[in-house]
């Protein structure tokens, strides 16, 4: 397959997944900010996770719910906004339109047309949750249409690769930001605030019910970290994401991706054979920092091996 085509499939899926992740984060942060309106910390979380705090503060000064919502959802000048992710997903899909199934194209195109309507109408904190739910639904539809209709060839593989690399990156980042935020809490307020913050984190990755099902116990940082890093049965955990990434990389035709395959296998081996006690002994923050670096490097190797071959 042409490298450029593979790149478009990969970025189409990454952008759609990124839109969904931003919507999840935003939803939970807006709810949290209602819980204790005096603090701006919760509103800063989605900005921190998407790496756009500095840009936001430069343009808006104070993080009000309305300003953060607009910036992350609709702002055409923010390259990471949901609006721009969907635009980019649609542009990439347009290039590979003859490769993807018509159901998939119609889904991406339809999403974009509706997205423009949302942007035209604008959002306030009351309509936010309807919008954010819509984003999540469209992303589910996108993955479902692809999974249900695409031939299992490299077209499918590169699109899956984008989905899971983006998801792994998002899970690692959100866990990292929350870990830092929670460790900054005042000790005396610890228990009650911590509970809400970990619960919010779980909800943002659809992990609240999963946690209850698996642990049937109170929320502790260690278990949350275990669920989101090491559990293979949790679809947004790092280990589950890397399981998919490895499967997909092994199926891509040709030998160009050796370096990327090796790196992905190494990460997966570490996730498979680590215990949560090991991770806490090394320090959760340090482990997450190094995982984020690894994901970043893997992204570069994928680019180098497949998407920009010379």
């Amino acid at each position, binding site marked *: 397959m042409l*490298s*450029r085509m593979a790149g478009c499939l990969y970025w189409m899926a990454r952008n759609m997944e990124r839109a969904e992740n931003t919507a999840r984060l935003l939803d939970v942060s807006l709810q949290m900010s209602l819980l204790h309106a005096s603090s701006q910390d919760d509103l800063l979380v989605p900005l921190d996770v998407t790496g756009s705090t500095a840009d936001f503060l430069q343009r808006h000064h104070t993080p009000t719910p309305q300003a953060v919502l607009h910036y992350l959802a609709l702002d055409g000048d923010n390259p990471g906004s949901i609006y721009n992710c969907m635009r980019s997903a649609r542009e990439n899909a347009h290039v590979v339109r003859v490769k993807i199934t018509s159901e998939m194209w119609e889904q991406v195109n339809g999403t974009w047309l509706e997205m423009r309507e949302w942007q035209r109408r604008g959002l306030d904190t009351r309509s936010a949750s309807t919008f954010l739910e819509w984003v999540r639904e469209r992303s589910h539809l996108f993955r479902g249409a692809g999974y249900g209709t695409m031939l299992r060839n490299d077209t499918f593989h590169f699109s899956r690769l984008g989905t899971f690399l983006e998801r792994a990156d998002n899970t690692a980042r959100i866990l990292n930001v929350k870990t830092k935020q929670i460790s900054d809490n005042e000790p005396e307020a610890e228990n009650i605030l911590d509970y809400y913050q970990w619960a919010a984190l779980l909800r943002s990755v659809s992990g609240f019910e999963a946690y209850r099902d698996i642990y049937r116990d109170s929320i502790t940082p260690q278990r949350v970290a275990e669920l989101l890093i090491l559990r293979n049965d949790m679809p947004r955990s790092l280990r589950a994401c890397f399981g998919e990434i490895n499967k997909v990389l092994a199926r891509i035709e040709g030998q160009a991706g050796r370096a990327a395959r090796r790196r992905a296998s190494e990460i997966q081996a570490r996730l498979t054979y680590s215990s949560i006690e090991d991770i806490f002994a090394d320090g959760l923050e340090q482990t997450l920092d190094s995982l984020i670096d690894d994901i970043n490097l893997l992204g570069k190797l994928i680019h180098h091996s497949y998407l920009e*071959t010379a």
Partner: protein
Amino acid sequence: MHQITPLDHTHYDEMLAAGQEVRPSYQHFASWLNQATPDWLRNKQAEADTLFRRVGITFAVYGDESGAERLIPFDTIPRIISAAEWKTLEAGCIQRVTALNRFLHDIYHEQDILKAGIIPAEQILTNAGYQLAMQGIDLPRQVYAHIAGVDIIRHSDGGFYVLEDNLRTPSGVSYMLENRKMMMRLFPELFASHDITPVEHYPNMLLDTLRSVSPPEVDNPTVVVLTPGQYNSAYFEHAFLASQMGVELVEGQDLFVKNGHVYMRTTSGPQRVDVIYRRLDDAYLDPLAFNAGSMLGVPGLMSVYREGRVSVCNAVGTGVADDKSIYPYVPDMIRFYLGEEPILHNVPTWQLRKPDDLAYVLDHLPELVVKEVHGAGGYGMLVGPAATTEEIAAYRLRILEDPANFIAQPTLSLSTCPTFVEAGIAPRHIDLRPFVLSGKKVQLVAGGLTRVALREGSLVVNSSQGGGTKDTWILKEDITC
């Protein structure tokens, strides 16, 4: 019963002869049309619009601020050509394109036609379409214009005339194919009652043609379609043809030159490319050889091409032969290279670089059509009878600035064909573009793109100027009555 009034007797109508009599090739169709109710037809037309929109057969319009993609209107009433007429058209197109390819080979080699004094040398050598870089290069099978679109009209005398030859990157063939598919879907019963020559094998024929002109030492040539990208007005067609032929659709950035060959970047590493069907103008092909600012081309492509290690279709430098200032000489080319009389006639043309022609044209602007020598797509032309006094005065100034840049032709009475319009069925002007493929042999599928000027009285059929298209039926055998 549909009331169809022919325009007047100064135009040839494809369906109705003088006195409302239906021409033989339309007999079956006319009786079918008579039993179809207007409402049913209207529904069918709406169905076609929906289907085209869903498939996304659109084109981008230059100069449209919104950058919107528009649908080319499709008309459900076919243009029918009899077997006998097609025989003439086919022979005429093959003859013409054969001569044009001989001419291109000649002017990039011995230039016999210039030595014989048939075309003034400065007309060729100073022509913007003439590429010095092609001088002395030998191309596989000596073919330059592998894909040619010949624009043909029918005059009020019933005869066919060639309006222009498109030898660079003619487009429209995807509409020919999609229109046929649509008609078979909407009106299967018509295909049962007519013996219509198929066109669906065009992509196959095109691929064979492209493979037949690959560099000679290559066994199993890799063919690609090179597009300027998704913002080009004909991007749909580029993607369509690539997928129909089962080859990659590449952009300039996908290709690179290394060790004297052209490669494409793929996920399993570089892959050699042997034939490039390019839908990109000469000027953008290679920033090292032509327009240095072009981001669309492939640096170093020309050097590989000149070495004969990659084929470019159509060849570089074909623009010199479809230039409107060279067009008047095509009948002479046919006589010179083939020793035959032209089967298809040219439209009489005034060349404004000639003082006598210039004087005549300036005196008769309101009745003539004036075109830029290098223009295409119906942009920048003057249709005298349809223009206002101010438009004519403004155009006169443009002509006087550089008369050699213009040609003029009489306002042709393009034939009409019944067409579905808001008020019912009415005659509208049409032309025809068959696509001629030259490789191992010169051939064409029996059909072409019929373009129709949808506005009443309009003679401009270009899609960018509000034209639509029709399916074109070539009957296998003529109906005798």
